[in-house]
């Protein structure tokens, strides 16, 4: 068995008295596609932040490619092969689509300030390499025609795709997507999920997806983790999770009932 791409062992994140994430375990093998679901405030994004170094876990250990990354800064964790997108899009708004991706290529650049200021051969080689790589990633995400567009002017769906292109350009072994389909319509969501799967197959990287749309995330992921109030309440294949009564109670409740067309009695006093 190869070394796990990502291992989280008993990770707990506390903010004062609030336990945002409790005793969280997760092992991801190379090339795995895992979904992370749960109601609002369940701790999904906190888990992401603990993985990518934005928050330091209060307890527990995070290992990337077998080595411990607790206490590392986000850019160091990125250099070890973890890339992410953000729930509320965080592109470099005033820069072109190409520059957004080129900045991410910087993580693997070998030239320094000195090279840039004196235009050394190494600098020119690196710039050429970064340019061709960035263009390649734009093509992969179907954004080749948007190359020189300022990213803030892109349509919403394309901004989301550009964020994924940017994350891929850091050369990750693990890609963390934080609600990549948020705000998209049904057709766009299906398209995006197919894209995510094709990215996984093409680059052979592990992907961890946070998603609210149950049907979608169940269709795309091989394994699911369900969080509620910071606790992992279920884990397993989509089919197993779907049958888990705790999940139905915590998260699927409404959707499930609706699907079965069972009338939900309104609480007293509501309009």
């Amino acid at each position, binding site marked *: 068995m190869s070394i796990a791409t990502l291992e989280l062992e008993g990770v707990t994140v506390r903010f004062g008295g609030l336990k945002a994430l409790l005793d969280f375990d997760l092992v991801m093998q190379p090339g795995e596609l895992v979904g992370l679901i749960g109601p609002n405030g369940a701790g999904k994004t906190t888990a992401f932040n603990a993985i990518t170094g934005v928050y330091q876990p209060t307890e527990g250990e995070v290992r990337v490619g077998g080595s411990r990354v607790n206490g590392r800064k986000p*850019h160091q964790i*990125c250099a070890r092969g973890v890339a992410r997108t953000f729930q509320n899009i965080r592109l470099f708004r005033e820069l072109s689509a190409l*520059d957004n991706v080129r900045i991410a290529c910087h993580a693997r650049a070998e030239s320094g300030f000195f090279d*840039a*200021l004196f*235009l050394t051969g190494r600098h020119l080689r690196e*710039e050429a390499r970064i340019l061709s790589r960035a263009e390649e990633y734009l093509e992969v995400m179907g954004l080749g025609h948007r190359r020189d567009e300022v990213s803030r002017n892109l349509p919403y769906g394309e901004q989301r795709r550009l964020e994924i292109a940017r994350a891929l350009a850091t050369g990750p072994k693990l890609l963390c997507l934080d609600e990549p389909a948020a705000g998209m319509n049904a057709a766009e969501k299906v398209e995006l999920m197919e894209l995510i799967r094709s990215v996984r197959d093409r680059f052979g990287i592990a992907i961890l997806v946070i998603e609210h749309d149950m049907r979608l995330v169940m269709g795309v992921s091989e394994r699911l983790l369900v969080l509620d109030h910071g606790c992992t309440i279920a884990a397993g294949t989509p089919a197993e999770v779907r049958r888990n009564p705790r999940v139905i109670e915590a998260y699927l409740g409404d959707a499930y009932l609706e699907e079965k067309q069972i009338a939900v009695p309104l609480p007293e006093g509501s309009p």
Partner: protein
Amino acid sequence: MAPLRQLLRSFLPFLVGVPVLLSAQWAMEYSGSQAYTLLLVTVGVNVILAVSLNVVNGATGQFSLGHAGFMAVGAYTAAKITLGLAGFKLSFLPAAVSDQLFFALALAAAMAAAGLAGVLVGLPSLRLRGDYLAIVTLGFGEIIRSVIENMKSLGQATGLSGLPLRTNLVWVGVSALATVVMARRLSVSTQGRALFAIREDEVAAEAMGVDTTGYKVRAFVISAAYAGLGGALIAHAILLATPRMFTFVRSIEVVVMIVLGGLGSITGSVVSAVVLTLGLEALREFQAYRMVVYAALLIVLMLLRPQGIFGTHELWDLPFFKRRGARKDAGGAARAGGAP
């Protein structure tokens, strides 16, 4: 062969610039119009200050108010060296050449000292964001000034006088050229784009693998070193280094220049440094009303064009240059040479 081409590529702007400056200097001396020399030196130094501050305030989006402090570090370092070496000369060289060599040494030391001061101020304070950095750098500028005012070896409040005249159009021109070339090359490199990323979104930049603190410090140090160069040059043009030359107001002046020119635009910084310096000189006739007119001009400009004269645009973004650039491929930074 390859190293030679490499050197040529690195120093092409200077190969073009130095002969032009030398002939300008010669013409100036020949025609005897020394009155304009000091004005031109002031313009050049302000270009150096504005363009270098723009690397921090414009490109990286940090707000530094300490440029005058770094100028002071550079000016006093260079002044101590030229004063200390005043009696010496390299016997195998003509006196003038020997003096200029010592001045080159003094300028290099000024940049190094200011850069070092940049590290000392930058390392702790660049972990902070926005307003905090402004306050720390503001405080640093004042500390430098009061340290100088209280140090006997630095002449206290009267400063160091009797510096030898070393600054000429060639030194100022080459330095301004070097500053612009530095800023331009940075802005089209992956390191420069990392700085832009910090300006746009620090959290995202960090997540995309940019060492945000490290890059902010580097930008800050580069900027400080060039400020030190500017300080050394101006001190050896007016033959004086006093604490009063490097007050908080001086820092603000530079900030005004880059805001007016357009934060993040190198062209804007150059143009507004030139225009404001010459404008202030032209307003000398109004005497007491000079600062009133100056301030009114700034207010009007900010009302009509809040993003500054150039916004974030550059001269080389124009379609004319774009076409040439496309043919020459992305690498050629030599065009920056024309600006100062």
